[in-house]
């Protein structure tokens, strides 16, 4: 139904603070684009600029090929789901959902049809006569979604919509949002600081840091080939192990493959580590000795926190483990699973 195009978008606040420093993203039709990054990275500002709630200092934002820089949020035909839901506390669920439609001058019976239809999709029918304060957190979240869907907009904008829910509900809603977005086929922009949400929801993943895009692309591509140490440590839980290299050497490493001259950091993911694996299969990989400082059995897997090569690394082992704190373990990582980053943090 619509594409969203950002071209070198910037946001400078009156005090001179630059929150977004030139961001370009092209979101294809029907795609779900997730903006992820630590707090203060400019992702919410960017979303609010797409919504028209913040002015765009420079660059252009186009929806469906039309530049919308100077158009107000109402005319942009977008719908937004807010972090705290922002339901109108004095209105019943029905009126909360109908408000935007009525403001657009839709006839009463059409409003009714749409609200009831959306309520049915979201299983909200029995709640239509209630007020927001009589609903649980999850129900409020659904109503906020319903208020967005009922408008049938060109673009959905989600501003950390799941951050106020408990972990279990968050997982459920995540799946539901994804399914709903697929079913409705509405182009969406989703802001989160939760890398798990980002990975699972995104068609296009955009990792932001300090007002700039660190990397954008398909979630698994980013996971496999992080473009910088920032992305490597932000995407993935637990994050990628990063160890400093001193003139191409790793302190305490038994073997280390040939390293490019400008590499300053070596990285490998916790799940790419093998403990006590067969040497022959690992030719050209990394081998080092690690002292176990902590063990975290999660059930299906266990995490070993180890001191090695002048840093702290995490090793994921499947299932339960017999390893105890204080053990010394040989750790291996295959050549193709190693990542190298330059002194500027960029991938080499």
């Amino acid at each position, binding site marked *: 139904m619509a594409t969203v195009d950002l071209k070198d978008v910037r946001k400078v606040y009156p005090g001179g603070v630059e929150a977004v420093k030139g961001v370009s993203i092209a979101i294809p039709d029907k795609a779900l684009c997730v903006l992820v990054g630590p707090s203060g990275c400019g992702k919410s500002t960017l979303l609010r600029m797409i919504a028209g*709630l913040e002015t765009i200092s420079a660059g252009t934002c186009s929806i469906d090929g039309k530049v919308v820089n100077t158009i107000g949020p*109402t005319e942009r035909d*977008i719908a937004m789901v807010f972090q705290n839901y*922002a339901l*109108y*506390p004095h209105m019943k669920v029905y009126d909360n959902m109908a408000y*935007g439609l009525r403001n657009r001058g839709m006839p009463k019976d059409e409003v009714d049809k749409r609200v009831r239809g959306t309520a049915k999709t979201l299983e909200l029918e029995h709640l239509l006569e209630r007020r927001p304060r009589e609903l649980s957190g999850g129900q409020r979240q659904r109503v906020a979604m319903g208020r967005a869907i009922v408008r049938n907009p060109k673009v959905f904008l989600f501003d950390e919509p799941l951050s106020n829910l408990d972990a279990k509900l968050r997982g459920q809603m995540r799946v539901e949002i994804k399914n709903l977005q697929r079913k409705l086929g509405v182009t969406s922009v989703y802001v989160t600081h939760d890398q798990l949400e980002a990975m699972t929801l995104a068609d296009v993943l955009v990792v932001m840091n300090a007002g700039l895009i660190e990397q954008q692309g398909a979630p698994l591509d980013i996971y496999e080939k992080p473009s910088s140490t920032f992305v490597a440590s932000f995407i993935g839980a637990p994050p990628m192990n990063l160890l400093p290299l001193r003139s191409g050497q790793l302190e305490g490493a038994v073997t280390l493959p040939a390293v490019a001259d400008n590499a300053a950091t070596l990285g490998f993911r916790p799940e790419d580590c093998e403990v006590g694996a067969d040497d022959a299969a690992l030719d050209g990989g990394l081998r080092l000795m690690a002292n176990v400082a902590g063990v975290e059995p999660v059930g299906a897997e266990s995490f070993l926190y180890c001191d090695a090569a002048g840093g702290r690394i995490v090793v994921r082992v499947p299932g339960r483990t017999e390893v105890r704190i204080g053990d010394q373990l040989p750790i291996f990582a295959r050549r193709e699973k190693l990542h190298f980053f330059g002194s500027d943090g960029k991938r080499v």
Partner: protein
Amino acid sequence: MAEPKALPPASGHDKLMIGQSKAGIYMAHAILILGILIVAFPIYYTFVASTHSLQTILRPPLPLLPGDRFLENYSEALFGGVGRIGGVSVATLLINTTIVAFGIAIGKIIISILSAYAIVFFRFPGRMFFFWLIFITLMLPVEVRILPTYKVMVDLGLIDTYTGLIVPLIASATATLLFRQFFLTIPGELVEAARVDGAGPWRFFWDILLPLSRTNIAALFVILFIYGWTQYLWPLLVTNRNDMNTIVIALRKMISFADADTEWHLVMVTSMLAIVPPILVVVLMQRWFVRGLVDTEK
């Protein structure tokens, strides 16, 4: 929105927090009853006096029980007219005062809610300047600016008019600040949600801000109505004609320095009638006010 919190079950111990012994409870109640008597007795005595004839009142001691002239006294005052204030009836005074009190209360609420709306939700040049200007007027009581205000009213020919009685008292820095504080607690997301939902400034004010301010408006109305009802200095200055007096001014005019000239039974009736509307407003609005509170907190 806060989730409802269950109160801990009240145990017998909690109820006895202050008076642990029975004697303590009796003592506390005795003090409370005494306090109520001290406050209520003058009002009761006024009521008693309003039901006796002038002769009975002037011949001490005044009886402690109501007399038999309730209907005569009240109908004479309400509809007959009181000699000392040029034969104007108390009914006229009540109408005047009601118009003034409503005018002041409603006018103050409308003006202050709109100014607070502008200051909180709009970015315009001089916003903070205007905010501080309003704030500074808090430091200027009516009495300080009463002469220039009076001059302006005379020049505009507004002496002895409702406009002259109401308009100079209608701006309220206090109410503006109260509404401002309340508006500042409204989450920005709610404003943005309304914008995305296609509500312009006026719609937002009417559909969202006003319903949310219900309880504040009710509370403020009670306070401002009583403020308007009990105004003394300004109505005293700006009215000359007896039939434009408010009830408080008329009450003062009814009392002569020579005791014998004063129709005390009518003064007492007027006093009683002057108390009734504020009490009504408090009682009626209180119910509404509590309902509003329950609604938002549930």
